[in-house]
C-alpha cells in the first residue's frame, strides 16, 4: 500500500487557495503515521498556476495542478473524470476532500469509481494502532459515530471549520485531549503546521493548533508545483453560471442579541412570542433555523447557519432548535448562548452556556414577564 495521503484542494474566487484547502492539508498531515509520509495536493481548475505555486510553498507538501478547459468551473463530472485515473494509479491511503457544497457533491461518486471507502462530514479522529478512527455527528448531533474504512483507499470529507477551533471535536477521548492540549477559542482560519506526532498520546483525539507564520512557507525559494493538463472532457452537464446571493438587509449582523426560532416553536403564530422577548433587549433581532424558513414561518433572510448567515452576537437565545451542525456553523461564535428545548438530549445544549429544558410556548411568556420585571427594577434603581 502507498503511504501517500492526497488532498483535493480548490481555488477561491480570488485565485488563491481556498481556506478550506489549508485546513484540509493540516488534517491530512495529522493522519500520517510519521512525518516522512508524503502529502500530495491535487488542484483542479483553469488558470490555477499561482494558487498551485502558493500551495507548493507549504512545507512537506507536493502539489500537482490539473489544468483543463473543462475544469474552468466546478463540475462533479469533470472533477471525477480528471481525478479518478490519477488517483487510481496511486493507491493512496486517504483522499481528503472538504465537506463543502462541491466536496459533498463529487466525493461520494469518486469513492464509488475508485472502489474506495467513503466517510463524510468528519469532525474529529483519534489514531489507534490500526490507523485513524473517524468520528462524526449523527441524529442531528445527538450521537457521535466512530467509523473506520475497510478498503485500501478511503475518501474522507472533512466538515469545514471542524479543525479550526480546539473545542469542536468531541469523542470519548475528549477529556484526555482537553487535559493534554490547550484549546483555543480563536476563530481565525487554521494554518497548516508540521504535525508533531510524538506529542500526541497514542489514543488522543488530535486537534491542530495554529501557526500563522507558515503560510509564507519556506523562504528559501518556493519549490515548483507540478502542472499537468487534461484534454477536453465531454460533459453531460452544462454549467450555466453562478446566481448571486439575494441582497438582504443584514440587521442580523449588527444585532447584539438574537432570539432565534426553530421548528420547535410549533408554528408561525408563536413567532410573536419571540418578538416580544427580543423587544425587551436593545439592538435585538429575530433569527431562525432553516426548518423555520423552509416552512415559510420567516423569510429566508432570517436563516442562520452554514447556508444562511454567520452571526456572533453577545447573546443568542435558541428556541426549539435541535442543534444540527449546519445550524451551529452559523452561531457557535456567539458570546453567550441560551437554549430552550424540551428534549434534554438535544445537541444544542452542548454549545449552550445556559440550558432550559421546557415547553417553549408555556416558558416564553414566563421569561418575558421575568425579564420585564428585571428591566423595570433596573429602571427604578437608576432613577
Amino acid at each position, binding site marked *: 500500500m502507498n503511504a501517500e495521503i492526497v488532498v483535493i484542494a480548490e481555488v477561491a474566487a480570488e485565485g488563491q487557495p481556498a481556506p478550506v484547502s489549508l485546513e484540509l492539508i493540516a488534517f491530512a498531515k495529522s493522519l500520517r503515521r510519521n512525518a516522512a509520509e508524503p502529502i500530495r495536493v491535487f488542484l483542479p481548475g483553469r488558470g490555477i498556476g499561482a494558487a498551485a505555486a502558493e500551495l507548493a510553498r507549504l512545507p512537506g507538501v507536493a502539489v500537482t495542478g490539473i489544468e483543463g478547459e473543462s475544469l474552468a468551473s466546478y463540475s*462533479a*463530472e469533470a472533477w*471525477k473524470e480528471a481525478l479518478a485515473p490519477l488517483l487510481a494509479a496511486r493507491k493512496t491511503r486517504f483522499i481528503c476532500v472538504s465537506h463543502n*457544497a462541491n466536496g*459533498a*457533491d*463529487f466525493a461520494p461518486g469518486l469513492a*464509488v469509481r475508485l472502489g474506495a*471507502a*467513503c466517510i*463524510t*462530514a468528519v469532525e474529529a479522529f483519534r489514531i489507534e494502532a490500526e490507523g485513524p478512527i473517524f468520528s*462524526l455527528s*449523527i*441524529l*442531528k448531533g*445527538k*450521537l*457521535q*459515530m*466512530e*467509523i*473506520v*474504512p*475497510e*478498503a485500501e483507499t*478511503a475518501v474522507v470529507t472533512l466538515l469545514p471549520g471542524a479543525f479550526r477551533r480546539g473545542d469542536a471535536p468531541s*469523542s*470519548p477521548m*475528549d477529556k484526555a485531549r482537553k487535559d493534554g492540549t490547550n484549546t483555543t477559542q480563536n476563530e481565525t482560519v487554521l494554518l497548516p503546521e508540521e504535525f508533531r506526532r510524538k506529542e500526541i498520546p497514542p489514543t488522543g483525539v488530535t486537534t491542530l493548533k495554529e501557526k500563522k507564520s507558515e503560510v509564507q512557507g519556506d523562504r528559501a525559494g518556493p519549490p515548483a508545483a507540478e502542472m499537468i493538463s487534461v484534454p477536453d472532457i465531454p460533459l*453531460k452537464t*452544462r*454549467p*450555466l453560471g*453562478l446566481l448571486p446571493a439575494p441582497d438582504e438587509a443584514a440587521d442580523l449582523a449588527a444585532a447584539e*442579541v438574537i432570539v432565534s426560532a426553530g421548528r420547535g416553536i410549533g408554528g408561525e403564530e408563536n413567532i410573536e412570542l419571540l418578538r416580544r422577548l427580543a423587544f425587551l433587549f436593545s439592538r435585538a433581532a429575530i433569527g431562525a433555523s432553516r426548518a423555520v424558513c423552509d416552512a*415559510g414561518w420567516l423569510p*429566508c433572510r432570517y436563516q442562520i447557519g*452554514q*447556508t*444562511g448567515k454567520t452571526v456572533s452576537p453577545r*447573546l443568542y437565545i435558541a428556541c426549539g432548535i*435541535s442543534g*444540527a451542525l449546519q445550524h451551529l456553523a452559523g452561531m457557535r461564535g456567539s458570546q453567550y448562548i441560551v437554549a430552550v428545548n424540551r428534549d434534554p*438530549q438535544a*445537541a444544542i*445544549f*452542548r454549545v*449552550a*452556556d445556559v*440550558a*432550559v*429544558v421546557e415547553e417553549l410556548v408555556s*416558558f416564553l411568556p*414566563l*421569561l418575558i414577564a*421575568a*425579564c420585564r420585571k*428585571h428591566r423595570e427594577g*433596573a429602571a427604578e434603581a437608576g432613577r
Partner: protein
Amino acid sequence: MKILVCIKQVPDAEAPIRIGADGRSFAVTGGAWRMNRFDEFAVEEALQIREAFPGTVVEALSVGPARAAAVLRRALSLGADEAIHILREGEEEPLPGEVAALIAAYVRDRGYDLILAGVMAEDDMQAQTGPMLAERLGLPCATAVVAETIPPNGMTIRVERELEGGLREALEMPLPALLSLQSGINRPRYPALSHVLRARTQPMMTVRAGDLPAPPRRERVVLLFLPAPAAKTLFLTGTPAEKAERLAELFREKALL
C-alpha cells in the same frame, strides 16, 4: 415520465435515544420512526412534476427492515403511484455505500427518467447515497438542489444547486439524471383522504436484499456514543417560573438586559 423517489425511514430525533448493547446500534424509545424530512421534499417535487407532465408515474423506494414499509405507505398516501420495498433485515442501519448498491441493482435498466433523493438522511447525515447511486448508474447528478425545471420536451432538466453563503449554481443536464434535493425547494403537502384510504390496501412490491447482488461494505462502524454534555453548560432547575426568574437574573448579571 417515470420518476423514482428514494426514501429513508429515520428515527424521530426528538424521542430519547439509547445505544444498543453492541455499542454500534441505537434504539429509539417508543419506536418513533418517520420519513426523513429531506425526502418529504423529494416526494413533493415528484408529485409537482407529475402535475406538470400528465402521465408521469411516481414510484417510491425504501431500503430497510419490515418497519420501513410505513414510510412507503406514507409516500402512497401523499400520492405516489407505486412503492418498492427492498427488504433488508437487521436493525442496524446500513451505510450509504450499501444502500446505493442495493438501489442501483434494483433500478438498473428499469427506465427511470429522473431519480430523486434527499440531500442527506437526518440520522446518518452522510449525504452520500444520491451521488453514489448516480455514479453506479452512470447518471449525471446534482446535489443540494433548491430549484428545478424541466422544459416541455422532457429531454433535459435545469437545476439550481445551493453553494455556500446563499450563492447558487445553475446547470442543465440531460435526462435521465439524479438529483439530491435540499429542504425548502417546495412546501410538502399533507396526505389527501382519498390517497390515505388507497394507501392502506395498495400492494407494494417487495424485493429481498438477499436476492440482489451482495453490496460492498467498505466502512465499519466502531462505536456510537452520547457526547458528554459540555462542562460549561448550566442546566437551570426548578419550576418553569423559577427557571424564567433565574434566566432573567443571569441576563441582568451579564448586563444583557
